[in-house]
């Protein structure tokens, strides 16, 4: 129960902050799952101490000044489906049972020593945290939602609730567009897509951060597409603070949003989440450098181009493993051969492409140890989990696409997409 109370408190804090910063009605903010992210982002920046001041200020400025509709809440969210998702995430052993879950939740335990203790430990090489130098926000968040309790069951529940929050945020970000595209069918299509990738279900219940990262990535994208910039900024700060790959997801989401909207005079506003992501990463890396903490796993080196082919092969073999992915990736890839019937589809392709390129770049230019992980089967599926929300949206739009017209070979009445008509 403590974790539920912790999440409720976080949500209340975020809603109040949102009402003050974005001048929304408090009741509107309370009915929006993403409100908690503003609190998480600001708490994360505060935990960094004085160094986090720039990040916190930039987040508040973005929440206050970037354009937004009068209400940022998504209407008619499928709350029942979200409750079902929470049940799925929570119906698991209330002890850690997967390798990295022990490591993530172990770091969350440190927060029971006091606010920001996880950051102090990560920045002190003599505390020997493993792996060194990882961004601290996710374990901090688990600790905060646990309200400082050091119980293993509380940590597992907090982690599952945070994963559910990320799923709810992603759904909130995209729901207006999904309803617009499929109407009343959208609920059934969403259920079919969610159940189509067994490994994603494992991760929803796992305490790993890969799925939350992917979900927050599509949330940033969705909020940008629907022009709710304050929410995109809050999600971007949490995303970049949760994992090093987070920044790649923010950049990919930005590229996707620009592909949807086109390059307009307001493009500078749309890159504000990416700017916040960069500030978050630069702040953390500067702190690590100042305290002499080396990041072994995510250091960049001279690219080993000859490994690119190996990576492509590994990616194909993992994506086509029907036990883990069903037919999700074959369907997503097949949908790429279709003409994009909405501007969002074009944006999703860009976001997925940019993500895969950055992922390949990080591995090709990363340390040898990471490539060994990839070849031994412990990494590539987790990277695919990170981009699965983008793939799932591609599958979603493929399932919702209008059938080709009988006589002309064109499409039945194409809906008008938010970025204007799709390219011929």
């Amino acid at each position, binding site marked *: 129960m403590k974790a539920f109370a912790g999440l409720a408190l976080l949500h209340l804090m975020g809603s109040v902050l949102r009402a003050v910063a974005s001048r929304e009605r408090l009741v509107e903010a309370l009915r929006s799952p993403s409100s908690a992210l503003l609190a998480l982002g600001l708490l994360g920046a505060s935990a960094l101490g004085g160094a986090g001041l720039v990040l916190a200020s930039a987040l508040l400025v973005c929440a206050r000044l970037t354009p937004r509709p009068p209400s940022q809440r998504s209407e008619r969210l499928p709350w029942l489906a979200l409750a079902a998702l929470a049940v799925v995430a929570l119906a*698991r*052993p*209330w*002890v*850690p*049972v*997967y*390798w*990295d879950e*022990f*490591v993530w*939740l*172990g*770091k969350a*335990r*440190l927060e*029971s020593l006091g606010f920001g203790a996880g950051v102090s*430990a990560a920045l002190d090489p*003599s*505390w*020997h945290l493993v792996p060194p130098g990882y961004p601290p926000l996710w374990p901090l968040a688990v600790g905060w939602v646990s309200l400082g309790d*050091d119980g293993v069951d509380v940590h597992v529940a907090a982690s599952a609730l945070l994963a559910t929050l990320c799923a709810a945020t992603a759904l909130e970000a995209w729901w207006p567009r999904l309803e617009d595209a499929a109407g009343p069918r959208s609920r059934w*299509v969403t259920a079919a897509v969610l*159940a*189509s990738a*067994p*490994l994603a279900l*494992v991760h929803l219940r*796992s305490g790993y951060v*890969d799925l939350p990262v992917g979900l927050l990535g599509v949330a940033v994208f969705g909020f940008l597409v629907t022009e709710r910039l304050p929410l995109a900024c809050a999600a971007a700060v949490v995303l970049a603070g949760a994992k090093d790959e987070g920044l790649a997801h923010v950049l990919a989401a930005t590229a996707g949003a620009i592909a949807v909207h086109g390059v307009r005079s307001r493009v500078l506003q749309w890159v504000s989440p990416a700017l916040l992501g960069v500030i978050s990463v630069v702040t953390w890396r500067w702190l690590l450098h100042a305290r002499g903490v080396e990041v072994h796993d995510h250091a960049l080196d001279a690219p080993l181009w000859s490994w690119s082919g190996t990576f492509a092969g590994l990616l*194909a*073999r993992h*994506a*086509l*493993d*029907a*036990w*883990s992915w*069903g*037919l999700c990736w*074959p*369907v997503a*890839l*097949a*949908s790429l*051969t279709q003409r994009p019937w909405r501007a969002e589809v074009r944006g999703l392709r860009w976001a997925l492409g940019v993500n895969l390129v950055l992922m390949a770049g990080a591995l090709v230019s990363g340390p040898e140890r990471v490539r060994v992980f990839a070849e*031994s*089967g*412990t990494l*590539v*599926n*987790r990277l695919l*989990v990170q981009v699965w929300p983008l793939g799932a949206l591609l*599958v979603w739009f493929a*399932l*919702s*696409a209008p*059938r*080709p017209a*009988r006589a002309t070979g064109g499409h039945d009445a194409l809906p008008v997409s938010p970025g204007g008509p799709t390219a011929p």
Partner: protein
Amino acid sequence: MSHPHLVTSESIVIDGPNGVTGAPRAGFPDGGRSLGLGLGAGLLVMVLLRTRAPRWVLALLLAGGAMPGLAALGWLRADAPHRRAALAASVTAGLDDLARLSPGPVARTLSIRDDGDVLFPLARYLWPARLDADGGVQVDRRGSSLTTACRAEPSGLVVHCGAAP
């Protein structure tokens, strides 16, 4: 299919989220079959998207493709619902045994040996931060079983956990 299923608690700890089965670590023994299935399905979907076939056919294909994986999650794996209690019990027993050395999260323990993938994460949960300090308990962890069976040497300064040295 000859995929190694994750049927033991230890295999779930090590590889549970790396795949629904142990195929990724085993180098995809059925890679050719998966490739054929994936390519066939992809081609079929391309055709379906270009015809006036109802979209529920696509949804049916998607659901059918997910069935083997969902069956493995629901029945075969050691974290399937009916085996969950046993998995939790084995992890809890291991955590409790190690916690008797030091409850953590900040511990003065020194890992003098750690050759098992399974006990490593348990110890990392219990002692995420390990201070550089003399006088702590030296822990020797061996083997790839969740059975910790920690036993101290007469001096009490060195504790062996896992398989016998």
